[in-house]
């Protein structure tokens, strides 16, 4: 683990993103339990380090397509937390004015172009974003995220084939948390390593420990470099786990206790913090400061959201078409 780490600043940037994601997740769940937020919420607790490590290699010009379980991806990519919070709270200041909700957060300024609630559907869309960049001669890349279960749906196949035939600058990131709702990997997926499916499309497939931000960083670096230089798509499979079930309220009875315990004991979040300080990449004081800063930023975001006005009901008449009456 943590082999050949990048410089300490990068490592700390990754950590900051992980902190931000975790704090936001904890707080969303707390607010739901307190009855202050109501929605279907798919926590990504446990998966933080995947988008955190990838995103330090991206800019806002790069595109992101993510899924219902995607708030970690959005935060890592740079979607301002306050816009997400206002969205969840149904406020007019929300990223989508409260019309999209957690499953559809969009923020083009930071490159978060589409968030979908339909399994697999983001992959063809990612191809299209990449096609636009390719045709325009831009160097931006498109990251399109999905889960292990999504690798069994038709859109996965069509997208990887199309991306390969057209050599698109797109990176398919499978966050393999070993479950698709309540279905284990083995029950739904006929192959052990999803990354091996890349061979069917004559593209590289990378299997990586998603609990190791350094390993994810290196895998992403290779894939992003390939995409930027016209080398075409890559499939990355990052092994991970989601600690809070499929959605909040899921008691997770279908997960063997031993498997769950092992996953929790491999929680990348505390492990990475420990490693950072033990290796001297950051002092405990520095890490404490990051956490305090992110906690304060979170408070500000929550306050921004709940201080904002609720979106007016007349908004349902807008944005259906360009010319909709206000």
């Amino acid at each position, binding site marked *: 683990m943590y082999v050949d780490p990048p410089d300490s600043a990068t490592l700390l940037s990754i950590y900051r993103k992980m902190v931000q994601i975790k704090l936001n997740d904890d707080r969303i769940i707390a607010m739901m339990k307190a009855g202050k937020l109501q929605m279907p919420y798919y926590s990504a607790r446990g998966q933080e380090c995947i988008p955190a490590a990838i995103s330090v290699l991206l800019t806002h010009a790069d595109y992101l397509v993510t899924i219902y379980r995607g708030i970690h991806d959005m935060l890592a990519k740079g979607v301002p937390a306050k816009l997400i919070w206002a969205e969840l709270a*149904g406020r007019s200041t929300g990223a989508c004015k409260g*019309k999209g909700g957690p*499953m*559809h957060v969009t923020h083009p300024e930071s490159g978060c172009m589409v968030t979908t609630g*339909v399994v697999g559907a983001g992959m063809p869309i990612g191809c299209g974003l990449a096609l636009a960049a390719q045709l325009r001669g831009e160097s931006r890349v498109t990251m399109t995220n999905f889960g292990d279960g999504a690798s069994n749906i038709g859109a996965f196949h069509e997208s990887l084939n199309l991306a390969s035939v057209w050599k698109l600058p797109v990176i398919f990131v499978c966050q393999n948390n070993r479950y698709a709702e309540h*279905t284990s990997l083995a029950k739904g997926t006929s192959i052990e390593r999803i990354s091996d499916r890349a061979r069917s499309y004559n593209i590289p497939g990378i299997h990586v420990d998603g609990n190791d931000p350094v390993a994810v960083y290196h895998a992403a670096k290779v894939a992003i470099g390939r995409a930027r230089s016209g080398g075409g798509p890559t499939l990355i499979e990052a092994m991970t786990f989601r600690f809070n079930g499929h959605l909040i309220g899921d008691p997770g009875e279908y997960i063997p206790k031993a498997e769950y315990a092992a996953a929790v004991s491999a929680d990348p979040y505390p492990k990475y913090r420990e490693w950072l300080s033990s290796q001297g990449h950051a002092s405990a004081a520095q890490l404490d400061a990051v956490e305090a800063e992110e906690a304060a930023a979170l408070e500000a975001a929550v306050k921004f959201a709940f201080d904002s006005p609720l979106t007016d009901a007349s908004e*349902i008449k807008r944005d259906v078409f360009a010319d909709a009456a206000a």
Partner: protein
Amino acid sequence: MSEQINTIQALNWALDDAMAADTNVVLFGEELADGEGGGVMKVTAGLSTKYGARVRSTPISEMGFTGAAVGAAVAGLRPVIEIMLMNFVAVCMDQITNHAAKLRFMSGGQTHVPMVIRTMTGSGFQTAGQHSDFLEAWFCHTPGIKVVMPSNPADAYGLLRASIDDEDPVLFIEHFPSYWNPGEAPKRGVSIPLGKARRVQAGSDVTLIGYSRSMLDIPVVAKKLEAAGVSCEIIDLRTVSPLDMETILTSVKKTGRAVVVHEAVRSFGVGAEISARIHESLFRELKAPVERVASQDCPVPFAKQLETAFLYSHADIEAAVRRTLA
């Protein structure tokens, strides 16, 4: 008061009784087996334990398993599959509309497709644009498939039994936000015939026509109107396609007024066909044009206040009735 159960229980009974009665009945869909929790809403809980390989959890492959149901039905089984939420029919329309609905006709009656597609939908839980739509009109416009939409636990039982026994494909649409509402328990073993509407209440001034969710609202409004001296006849369609025009026309002939209510968006919805047919048949008898009450023509929004504004209100129904009386 008679025994009360909810729709989840009623559906579970119907599936259980159908499987016990006919070994050709098989179930598949995502998470249906007990190892995966017996369905996300537990509708199929216990059935895989009882019936073994006849109940199967599938990969996330709606096209694959819906097509598999078509093939299994052609071979003589009676598959009952579950598309977890109605919006996901969009990934497997081809198997439903180009295959299930057409194979009897295209084969000149040599084969037929006795399968049931159970699916769930409805706004109210803030599941937003891709998890809430009522799309029954698409299938009503597709010759060769029936569309059944129960409004209470007893009907859910009786109509599901009849759907499973039917020799042709049936799309069985459940309103999941009312899954937990208690209602009179069905008489086990008794089917409710398809293609027949139910006159829920006799009245003389206006006919209120609904199905699925609108049958939760119509009686409430009718009661209020009754108190104001307006006598409402209420019809629950139960089967939306083919329409039971006999029951509808008999009623409207008597009352001279009709209001159709559905949760699906208004334009080009089921209400249009009912309205057109009533006008075609009873043009001279009608005292007022047929009114339609439906949701706003926009995607389903996330924020609570927007979601509420999207759906018709009780006041909308009342106003429509009053317009017919004006």
